[in-house]
């Protein structure tokens, strides 16, 4: 069973590293054209690489398409788009270094980041330099982080949609367990959200296991939680979905499995079986899904994008492959509307739009209840289920709807785990 995606990721990542990543990877620089530089301060190597590098690939595809069509017109000028990346490998010191370089030396107009402690570390700089910064985690927003926005992904909030769908379609599932890593920005945020969602859906959480990153043997953890005989096994935003699924398979779990991401599900199928993996619920679609051709989806030619991506980077598709591009597109629309590429202007224009563009439609600015500023766009989010070995969107559910009714429950659970809220 050849797993070539890893090969590919490794080759490109090594090539990138050896080419001197900090020098940046310019895309389509045209000497006489005016160029907008967009910075990406992301992990391109290391454990978090799958949530950074594929995003760069996606953005390059988008940028190439735009440049080939003559660029984008903002105000009275045509611009080409240039992506400049910096690999911080999820190290705080490197992140700060990269941010300063992108802003002070490269002169970017926006910095896209993954999120988490790496974003917290650059917030003072973002504020001082008034640099528009984006993240995939609204939980990074603080009352003072005006320049930080989350315009596409709204982790961990959208996880509630999966639970809602599960509860509606499988009313007999009454108990759940949660197993995930115990880091603040991913595992705990996600766990608290799932707990809130389960509570609202009337499902009882009978056990929660938050483990460290040094676990190599998931057998005891899985045995321990399965002893409580749950109907639902929730992996929240675990980095270890593959070994966990393996354990569930070996230990004969027959209930429903729900997770935030299920990257590389083909590998999971290889290690277990298609029958076992069918029915797993998560939140990230493949972009060749016909459901994305519906009305209200705000992404140009998703099936075409998917095809181009898989052609150039056959085994690198991950949850973030389309998210950074979506943020880029969102920025471009904001710049067009503002008639300017300056961060302060674009930010103002984006925020003033009461119905901002959102990938899956129904977008609204949200967040002050939880984090002090309405700097995250929430809208509809897809619920994805594995069917016949493929990820298929079952439904788009309204996140705003759930939040309007239940944000107090969410705040309660977040506080219980020591997470910061206002």
């Amino acid at each position, binding site marked *: 069973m050849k797993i070539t995606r890893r090969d590919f*990721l*490794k080759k490109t990542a090594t090539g990138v590293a050896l080419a001197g990543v900090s020098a940046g990877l310019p895309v389509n620089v045209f000497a006489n054209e005016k160029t907008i530089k967009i910075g990406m301060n992301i992990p391109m190597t290391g454990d978090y690489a799958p949530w950074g590098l594929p995003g760069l690939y996606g953005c390059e595809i988008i940028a190439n398409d735009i440049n080939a069509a003559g660029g984008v017109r903002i105000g009275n000028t045509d611009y080409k788009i240039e992506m400049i990346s910096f690999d911080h490998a999820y190290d705080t010191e490197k992140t700060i270094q990269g941010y300063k370089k992108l802003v002070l030396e490269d002169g970017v107009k926006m910095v896209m980041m993954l999120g988490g402690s790496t974003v917290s570390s650059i917030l003072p700089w973002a504020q001082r330099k008034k640099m528009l910064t984006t993240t995939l985690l609204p939980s990074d927003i603080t009352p003072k982080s005006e320049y930080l926005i989350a315009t596409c992904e709204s982790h961990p909030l959208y996880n509630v949609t999966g639970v809602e769908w599960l509860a509606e379609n499988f009313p007999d599932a009454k108990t759940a367990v949660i197993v995930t890593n115990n880091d603040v920005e991913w595992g705990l945020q996600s766990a608290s959200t799932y707990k809130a969602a389960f509570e609202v859906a009337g499902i009882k959480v009978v056990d929660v296991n938050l483990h460290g990153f040094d676990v190599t043997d998931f057998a*005891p953890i899985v045995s321990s939680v399965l002893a409580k005989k749950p109907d639902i096994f929730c992996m929240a935003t675990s980095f270890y979905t593959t070994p966990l699924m393996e354990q569930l398979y070996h230990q004969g779990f027959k209930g429903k499995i729900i997770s935030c991401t299920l990257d590389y599900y083909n590998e999971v199928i290889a290690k277990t079986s298609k029958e076992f993996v069918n029915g797993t619920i998560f939140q990230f679609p493949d972009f060749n899904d016909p459901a994305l051709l519906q009305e209200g989806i705000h992404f140009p030619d998703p099936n075409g994008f998917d095809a181009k991506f898989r052609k150039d980077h056959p085994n690198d598709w991950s949850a973030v492959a389309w998210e950074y591009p979506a943020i880029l597109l969102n920025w471009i629309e904001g710049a067009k509307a503002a008639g300017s590429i300056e961060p302060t202007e674009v930010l103002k224009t984006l925020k003033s739009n009461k119905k901002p563009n959102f990938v899956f439609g129904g977008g609204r600015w949200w967040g002050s209840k939880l984090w002090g500023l309405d700097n995250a766009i929430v809208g509809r989010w897809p619920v994805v289920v594995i069917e016949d070995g493929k990820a298929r969107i079952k439904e788009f559910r309204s996140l705003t709807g759930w939040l309007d009714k239940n944000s107090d429950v969410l705040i309660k659970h977040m506080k219980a785990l020591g997470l910061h809220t206002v």
Partner: protein
Amino acid sequence: MELILQSIINGLIQGGFFALFAVGLVLIFGVMGVVNFAHGELVMVGAYTVWLLHAQNGIPFIPVILIAIILVTVIGLLMERFLFRPTCNDPLAGLICSIGILFILQVLATVVGGDGPSKQVPPPYQGTLILFDFLRVPYQRVFSFFVSAAGLGTLWYFLTRTKLGWALRAVALDREASALQGININRISMIAIGVGGALAGLAGALMAPLTNINPHMGHNVIITAFIVTIVGGVGSLSGAVIAAVIYALFHTFITVYFGGVIATICGLLLMVVVLIIKPTGIMGVRVSE
């Protein structure tokens, strides 16, 4: 009750692995007096070998295990010849050299396997053994347990029933006296590190289908090996095996009831306590000066 029994089984199987790495470390320290900080990386090389040859290129599992053992043994021998022998008078220097190797091996792993998420090796033995209706042990783990036990058994036989084995034990007990008896210390050192390397390679190969394979996996191995070595007694091989099983059970149970990080903290504290109360550990007799 079922959980307790399941945890005991899980713990014993883990104990098999812990024993393999700890015994290797003790052998190297006992005979050569040097702390091999790169021991975790030797295990990692074993695991990567299985990933590269078996998972990526389809070579059958059992031959790949043998290849892993041979490869790691060779690395160990090279380390002895070029690093530990020249620095044999200064154990600190030897330790520092092993740290250098640690880095080099980690980078090698990154280059071979690429960065990114941990690698996974699909288990060659699928399916689960079910005992008494509720105890579940995947066949892969059953296999690993028996092979570890066989490996340790072979080592025991070697050390107690062969002349070479006795020579090894003699050098571990008293280097100078052994040299006076005509035992070739260099040769014995090579054998010690060769065996230690072989055990590490075996451990890595067995662990490969059961764990996350990445360039940093050696970190936990070395911590575990240290804890087990200290608790078992630095000079003692049987102590290492006993301590390995005890510690594995201890760690498994605490993980189940309190979580993995707490289990490791407790393990480290346990080690400090042993160092304070009985530095020679459970079975150790020699306190090195």
